[in-house]
């Protein structure tokens, strides 16, 4: 059984952003493997280590710098990597078809995708690629077991959690709580440089166009209350009632 795991090269949380015309500009060196995708890489590698999978293929869509995210996935234990290379800003639906094709091309029957991508703040890619593949999707997964061809999972729903099961092939979106991702060791980082990484040019058309981009900052009162606990507490209670009018 082959597992594909999607990784994205996204700005890290501390990256400096600038609104540049109609788009957001990010420092090129502030990118890293999306933390949400690390859970998927870890889950795939653990299934392989348990003898339940034969190969782990890391897939990425994005510009040339995305190779860094794929190298990280390789250092974490993926066997090989494929980059669908494009400089276009593709929305998740526009990525779904090419990602589905790449998943089929490597023969994978389990595709892992981070629950939410930290650049678009989007949770759409996993369900969208599942639709493109005609596979069921288990989203926001916190437990994942594989027995033969049966997948047994637990995932978050609006009011709590739900057990979920299906036969392969399936798409699973990952999140915190699924596992504790390992760190890449130096020898594995070195080894990852020699693992196969294939680049394929990608041409696709975005379905969503960004008309304007801004970095809003919400005006806050910024009032600092000082004094002993009883004084600041009664001052705060009064201000919440009389000034903010929220009590």
């Amino acid at each position, binding site marked *: 059984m082959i597992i594909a795991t999607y990784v994205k090269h996204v700005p890290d*949380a501390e990256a400096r*952003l600038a*609104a540049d015309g109609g788009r*957001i500009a990010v420092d090129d060196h502030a990118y890293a493997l999306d933390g949400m995708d690390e859970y998927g890489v870890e889950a795939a590698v653990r299934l392989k280590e348990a003898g339940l999978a034969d190969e782990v293929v890391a897939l990425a869509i994005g510009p040339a710098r995305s190779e860094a995210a794929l190298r990280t996935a390789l250092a974490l234990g993926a066997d090989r990597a494929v980059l669908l290379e494009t400089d276009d800003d593709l929305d*998740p*639906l526009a990525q*779904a078809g090419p990602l589905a094709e790449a998943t089929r091309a490597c023969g994978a029957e389990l595709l892992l995708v981070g629950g*939410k991508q930290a*650049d678009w*703040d*989007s*949770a*759409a890619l*996993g*369900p*969208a690629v*599942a*639709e493109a593949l*005609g596979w*069921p*999707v288990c*989203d926001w997964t916190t437990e994942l077991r594989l027995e033969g061809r049966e997948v047994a999972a637990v995932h*978050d*729903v*609006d*009011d*709590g*959690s*739900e*057990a*979920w*099961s*299906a036969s392969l092939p*399936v798409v699973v979106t990952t999140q*915190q709580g699924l596992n504790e991702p390992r760190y890449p060791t130096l020898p594995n980082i070195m080894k990852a440089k020699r693992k196969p990484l294939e680049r394929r040019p990608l041409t696709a058309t975005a*379905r*969503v*166009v*960004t*008309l*304007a*981009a*801004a*970095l809003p900052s919400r005006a*806050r*009162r*910024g*009032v*600092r209350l000082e004094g002993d*606990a*009883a004084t*600041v*507490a*009664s001052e*705060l*209670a009064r201000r*919440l009632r009389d000034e*903010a009018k*929220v*009590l």
Partner: protein
Amino acid sequence: MILIAIDHAHGAPRRGAFELVSAARGLGSDVAAVVLGGPEAAPVAAALAAFVPSVVHVDDAALDHPSHERRTTALASVAGELGAEVVLLVAGRGGQAVAPRLALRLGGTLLEDVAAVRRDGTAVVAERLAYLSRASLTVRATAAPVVVSVKPGAYPAAAPADAPGSVASRSVAFTAADDAARPGERRSVARGRVALEEADVVVCGGRGLGDAASFERLVVGLADELGAGVASTRAVVDAGWRPYDEQVGQTGKSVAPKLYFALGVSGAVQHLSGMNRSGTVVAVNKDGDAPIFKASDYGIVGDVREVLPALRAALAGLD
């Protein structure tokens, strides 16, 4: 026409349903609501008829707690039959999984987790946040139909319409692919407290509480007194003090209550991304340089374990 997909629980529409009515009315007057589920959903359909001209109840017990695939097929069937130009869903967990599938199935476009949606001529344009909610984007869909998932709390709940609408029942045919996933037992975490996304007041505790017992006593105690939702930071969840479903932030929930208490919370950008749409923000933290103070309306520098009992006494003493 504008189609809105109604979430419901215990025989009543969820609050998000009425927020979708508001969003839909801004797009056009020809609004229909679709309610999925067996007989238990009939009162939901009846309730919606007071708000929109037309309600479709897909009356099938196979749609009680359905898989995303069944739900997608049912919504696609109704949207296709009615010729919906726009389909609105609530961007909760379920809605965010169904909306992309539905958009692809209909051959349309997805505008995801939007704070506002409007028409610009014939185009559908929306405002949404990106980059961990640090940036705001204006986005336009390039192809119809447009599936829009609307951020919970982005619109006010609508008032009933002047004239009641009609309810029609219909059925839907599922395929084998719709039954590939088998949803199992649900574990609800409501515990009798208001749902986090629907709460007017949210009390969030961080590592500054010191331990799980202090969190329970101080944060949960204050929340219960205020009828508020309880939230946690990732650090607290990672430490095992609180369950995952209480986590607010990038990897957790996104909330926008009228009043948000950040207690012993440092304010990492990942956390801020889940709460920075809140109305009034109160922060208590012993580190005066903590980033949470920049995102707050009222800040108190001090040990949350000393300030909180005083605050509870002060709130109780307000007349």
